[in-house]
């Protein structure tokens, strides 16, 4: 794979040298919450692609502070970056930055959430990611001869993105078997709060055969609550979302684990796609308003195509090529506005 990417770099570089396009020299990225595993991997993807293209790439962390993000954007403009990539801290707060960048002549690419006045955005489709996981779970249920999915949804009802995931998951399962959402929980996206709320919910009603988590922490929290309640794992299916870090790989590769499905969002792939989009924008190529990044339901059988996982060393290596080859929607099936 390394040889391949090296070859790719050579080919791409040589092609570019003959084309009229030139690579941007400097690209800046303002992440909204850089300490999170997801963004660590997004940054890794951006950096990987920037290295391949020989672009000087710099990251700043707004740490969920919109004022910081504004100041950092101005900083990047002063440094005269060729393209500015941003994950908005919030959708309103980023609008003045976009206006300022337009006046300054700095092209901006957004990640994750759209904002008024933006040119282009790269992001996953939350609904479709959830849907793919639900579809995979549905198939397993059918293969087991089950007719009903009783779901505990360890969600995050305050965010439209995570609500879309849950919705996609439920609607996909319903295509295969009867789907009942027994618990709709708020696990704050954190493993410890998820354990706590799921414990209480399971105490009230543990007649469940599917646990869905809107991210890896939520799914794992739900599963840990199940284990702490001493419930049998034979008939349970756990599905998580994100493939943010090593959590799902660790759990999925255990023997007899109920953690069977992961709606992978390939954060490294998101970064990789984003960098390409930034280069395109710089070169004046016609870019889509929303560039959808690949998602896929991973199971223990197919994950190795996309991630090589070193369990002892606790590292994972993404296969950018295979991820890039995943058939991807040009448009999401549902958006926040459809809720």
């Amino acid at each position, binding site marked *: 794979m390394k040889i391949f990417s090296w070859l790719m770099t050579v080919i791409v570089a040589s092609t570019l040298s003959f084309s009229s396009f030139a690579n941007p020299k400097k690209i800046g990225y303002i992440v909204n919450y850089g*300490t999170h595993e997801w963004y660590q991997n997004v940054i890794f993807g951006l950096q990987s692609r920037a290295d391949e293209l020989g672009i000087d790439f710099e990251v700043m962390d707004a740490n969920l502070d919109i004022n910081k993000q504004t100041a950092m954007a101005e900083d990047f403009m002063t440094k005269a970056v060729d393209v500015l990539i941003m994950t908005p801290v919030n959708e309103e707060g980023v609008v003045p930055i976009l206006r300022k960048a337009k006046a300054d002549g700095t092209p901006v690419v957004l990640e994750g959430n759209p904002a008024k006045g933006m040119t282009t955005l790269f992001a996953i489709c939350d609904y479709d990611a959830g849907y793919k996981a639900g579809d995979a779970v549905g198939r397993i249920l059918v293969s087991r001869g089950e007719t009903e999915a009783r779901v505990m949804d360890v969600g995050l009802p305050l965010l439209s993105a995570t609500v879309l995931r849950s919705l996609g998951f439920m609607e996909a399962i319903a295509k295969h078997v009867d789907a009942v959402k027994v618990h709709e929980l708020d696990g704050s996206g*954190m493993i410890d709060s998820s354990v706590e709320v799921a414990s209480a919910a399971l105490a009230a009603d543990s007649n469940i055969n599917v646990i869905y988590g809107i991210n890896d922490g939520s799914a*794992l929290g739900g599963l840990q609550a199940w284990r*702490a309640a001493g419930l049998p794992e034979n008939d349970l299916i756990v599905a998580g979302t994100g493939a943010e870090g*090593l959590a799902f790989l660790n759990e999925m590769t255990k023997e007899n684990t109920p953690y069977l499905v992961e709606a992978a969002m390939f954060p490294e792939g998101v970064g990789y796609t984003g960098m390409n989009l930034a280069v395109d924008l710089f070169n004046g190529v016609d870019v889509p308003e929303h560039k959808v990044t690949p998602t896929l339901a991973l199971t223990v059988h197919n994950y190795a195509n996309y991630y090589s996982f070193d369990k002892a060393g606790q590292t994972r290596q993404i296969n950018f090529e295979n991820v890039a080859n995943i058939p991807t929607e040009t448009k999401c099936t549902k958006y926040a506005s459809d809720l």
Partner: protein
Amino acid sequence: MLKYFKSNESILFFLLIILCIFLSFYNPQFYSIQNINSILRSSSTVMIVAFGMTILLTSGEVDLSVGALMSFVTVIVMDVINISGSLFLGFLAVFIFCLMIGLINGLVRTMLNVNSLIATLAMMLILQGSVYIYSMAAIYNTHLLPFFTFIGQGFVFKIPMPVIIMLFILPFFIFLLNYTKYGRYFTAIGSNPSSSSLSGINNNKFKILGFVITSLLVGVAGIILASLMDTGQQGSAKGFELIVIAAVLLGGTSFKGGSGTVIGTILGILILKVIDNGIILMRIPQEFQLVVPGVILILAVYFDTLRKEKNV
């Protein structure tokens, strides 16, 4: 009605009973072993840390760094056991680390004379930041030692292990606060520091001790949490310090120091946790998990003042 409740504990106990009766009417599942275990298990980590916080608040201090420390502990314990394969070394590392943090908190409070609200707030920020210096990524259980899993998730005679651990620690604190001179000293220091010093008590020594005890208890709670999550997770136990402090205050300990009981603290925690549980059982939007305890806390403190006024 107030005259029937001579002590804060009896008010809390009454409140707890009412809550339980109400919830069991609403959902008979409330009294299931599973549910009671779930309440007790999630109470136990709060209780363990709250024992220390009761001592601290009684002696007029507070520790805001417990949540951040707890999250740090989950990372350390998982990492050290992963590397060494030894539970003992993992625990040792945790307790040495906690001892150090407690000592620093205590010394900053007493030697540098920094208000503990500020000193431990600073420690909270330091811990929250430095846990990412220690490791950017969450640390997963690769040692797969069965006893480690047992600590948070296991049962003994159908009682969850965290509850058993809490019950092991509890008598020590009841004993300490009610039957030894140290309990009196903590009260004296919190109620009137000049007076206790003028009675020959070394205030600083006991304050440092309070911080160290609290940090060590956070070590215990953090190990339980790591086992329960099966992960060393940065940013876990978010807001834990506030739940602990709210429960201790609800239990009748004064923020100004001087009075506090372990039993009150336990009742305070049970009330908050039963409310949490009830909100999920009744399928009320979970945002109320923050709202209801806030309201109850204000009411409890108000009733306590009313009762004290009547007594005087």
